[in-house]
């Protein structure tokens, strides 16, 4: 298990952080608190899973935060305008599809633009971040759109519990983690992703459909943002056009803390999961320890820098 071996320092970091916060916050390791933690990291983890693919091929997607807002507003808009005071499974399905469809359109565009033109993905997705944010603000005059109490199904996505224990977002997160791990580590597509990120030109000469792979990668990243957007919106009980601000940066942080090379070609889904957990523990721990939020930022920044420094040094 080479992958697990590489993760030993990160797993050690998790243990150390957990014990450290246990000193400050006596209840930190309690089952409820831990379950709460998994719930809190679910949105970021899902975003980071998609981001891992993009970073693995040497790209970047800055639009995922705005995508969270756009998917939320689109879905809730459809939901309220279609179904009114009632709840209809078919209409819920249509609304979810509309939200994911919006994300898919953006993802397709990113992939086509990145693979067929010389525009750098940073700029492409920076631009579409603004466009997506603008689109989200078009709904309801830019005001939050509350979700009716009767929409129990949609609200369950972010707040329900599986078997009354596992929060639904956590179940979704774990399912997606498994699917993405399979896709990356157990399919031809995954090998293509590594080849593309390691050497795009070599991949082309080897007969890998580089354009198709690249489009699929950006599409998957946007779809992940779509799912994350559903959960986030449901958790807020309202679609907020301004939500998801800076989410892209936290997701990128989780990916790189998890050991994925920013130049592409090297990294794992498991690493990203670990990275997201570390950032989640920091977030929650610093919060519960009552550290002033100004200091929280500084500590988090320092930790990210340190983690990436260690990773870069190890892989030189």
């Amino acid at each position: 298990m080479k992958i697990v071996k590489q993760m030993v320092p990160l797993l050690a970091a998790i243990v150390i952080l957990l014990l450290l916060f246990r000193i400050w916050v006596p209840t930190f390791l309690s089952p409820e608190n831990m379950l709460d933690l998994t719930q809190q990291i679910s949105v970021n983890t899902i975003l980071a899973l998609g981001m891992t693919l993009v970073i693995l091929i040497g790209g970047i997607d800055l639009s995922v935060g705005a995508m969270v807002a756009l998917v939320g507003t689109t879905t809730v808009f459809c939901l309220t305008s279609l179904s009114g005071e009632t709840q209809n499974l078919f209409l819920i399905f249509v609304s979810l599809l509309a939200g994911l469809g919006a994300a898919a359109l953006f993802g397709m565009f990113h992939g086509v633009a990145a693979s067929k033109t010389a525009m750098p993905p940073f700029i492409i997705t920076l631009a579409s971040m603004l466009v997506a944010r603008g689109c989200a603000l078009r709904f309801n005059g830019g005001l939050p759109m509350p979700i009716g109490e009767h929409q129990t199904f949609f609200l369950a996505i972010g707040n329900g519990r599986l078997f009354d224990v596992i929060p639904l977002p956590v179940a979704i997160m774990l399912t997606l983690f498994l699917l993405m791990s399979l896709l990356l580590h157990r399919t031809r597509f995954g090998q293509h992703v590594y080849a593309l990120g390691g050497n795009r030109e070599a991949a082309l000469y080897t007969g890998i459909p580089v354009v198709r792979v690249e489009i699929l990668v950006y599409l998957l990243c946007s779809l992940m943002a779509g799912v994350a957007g559903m959960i986030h919106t449901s958790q807020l009980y309202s679609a907020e056009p301004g939500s998801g601000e800076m989410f892209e940066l936290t997701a990128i942080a989780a990916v790189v803390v998890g050991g994925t090379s920013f130049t592409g070609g090297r990294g794992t889904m498991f690493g990203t999961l670990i990275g997201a957990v570390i950032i989640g523990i920091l977030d929650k721990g610093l919060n519960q320890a009552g550290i002033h939020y100004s200091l929280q930022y500084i500590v988090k920044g320092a930790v990210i820098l340190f983690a990436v420094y260690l990773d870069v040094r190890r892989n030189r």
Partner: protein
Amino acid sequence: MPATISPLLRLHGITKRFGNVTALDDISLDLQAGEIHTLLGENGAGKSTLIKILGGIYQPDQGQIWLEQQQVSLRSVADAARLKIRLIHQELSLAPNLSVAENIFLGCEPVCFGFLQRRQMNQKAAALITQLGLSEIADVTATVSDLSTAQQQLVEIARALSQEARVLILDEPTSSLSDVEVDALFNTLRRLRSQGVGIIYISHRMEEITRLSDRITVLRDGKSVGTANTNEVDTATLVQWMVGRDIQEHFPRPPYRPGEVALKVCQLSSPYVHDISFEVRYGEVLGLSGLVGAGRTELARALFGIDRVQSGTVMIDGQPTQIRNPREALNQGLVLVPEDRKQQGLVLDQSVAFNITLPWLKDWIRGCVFYYQIKNAIVERTVKRFGVRLAGSEQPMRDLSGGNQQKVLVGRWMEKPPKILILDEPTRGIDVGAREDMYRIIGDLVKQGMALILITSDLDEVLNISHKVGTFRAGRLTGIYETQKVSAEQIMQQLTKGEESENR
């Protein structure tokens, strides 16, 4: 070159270890002023390590370096520069976005109160170019990326000599140059020699070495095998020193038993080549010769579906085909092994096994199941068939020598042999032993009836390995000759005809 003159540079007992690998073992060497001294050896023999020590990049574990009878220590690149030892690396290290003059003065730009003196810089650069006799570079304000590879190489040399040099070290400067361009470089080096500069020259090309150098030192496995005056030693001896065994036939030409026409190209044009017509038969090697940028690689790219084909027809086995991307080419049984192993060929960070099996993922990954047995069998077959030397198939590609990387790059396609194989510079930058292996592989493939297109800048190679040779000039195929009925001089003439009138 009387040996009684005290040497300009003397290395004594240089030893360098990396971990428990001894890269250099007790190397002694001297260099006279006004001498061109060649270092010869297979990849991994220690040439590059040795010159990196001279350039101050590595420090030796043991041994002394004397410069003009003074013992010196070269702890950094700056130390070497201060002692006027100039090192020109194998890979170009120019900033492609800057001008010739800006590159020459990079890091020591003339300034006045912190402001760049651009006019003064350009004047100085132009003066330097004239003084060095590098007439090939006409305009010092030209952007480096617009220059040919040969011109860039000359800029690199100009930069190394922009400050006075006592010792000039060149690491395979000709690996990307064509014969004409090599001549220009050699004239410059000879002029520097006559000015008293000591030159250490590294190359694989035997013919160059005997033309250019005064003395030759051969390294093998980190040891110095011997030093000889160039006019007192023959090629066979040098090769034997290098590889430690006799190599009988330098260029084994594959037997010529042409079959049906495999590939027929009629009036093909892409943005870079014009009106190309030729055919290759099964069991035949067609060599393509030309200066760098003459259109050989560009033709290959068009055939392989990377560059857009604007007009003309391509027929494989008599059937007209349209190839729009490499996948379609591979499906048609056409493989291109690109010229730049590192840039276009291999995923260096990944393992040997990853690289070998990359074209054959369909065979060992079905859905979500990895069939490692099949994968390992593919890797094992390829490694065995081509004699790839490696520690293990999970070794990173980066760690293999150039020759072994090339074997992987060619060998991986033989899992399902293509009908038509295009090899672009398959022997560039690999050592004599690996080169022999590559020729043997080419011979085997041809005997099996494959149609081969061999693109190479090495005139000896193209004339001895291929059955026919096509000459390229300025994006056009100017002629096809049977190699046994044509001389190197005739080909050379073809390649360079009209050069003067086109350039001026």
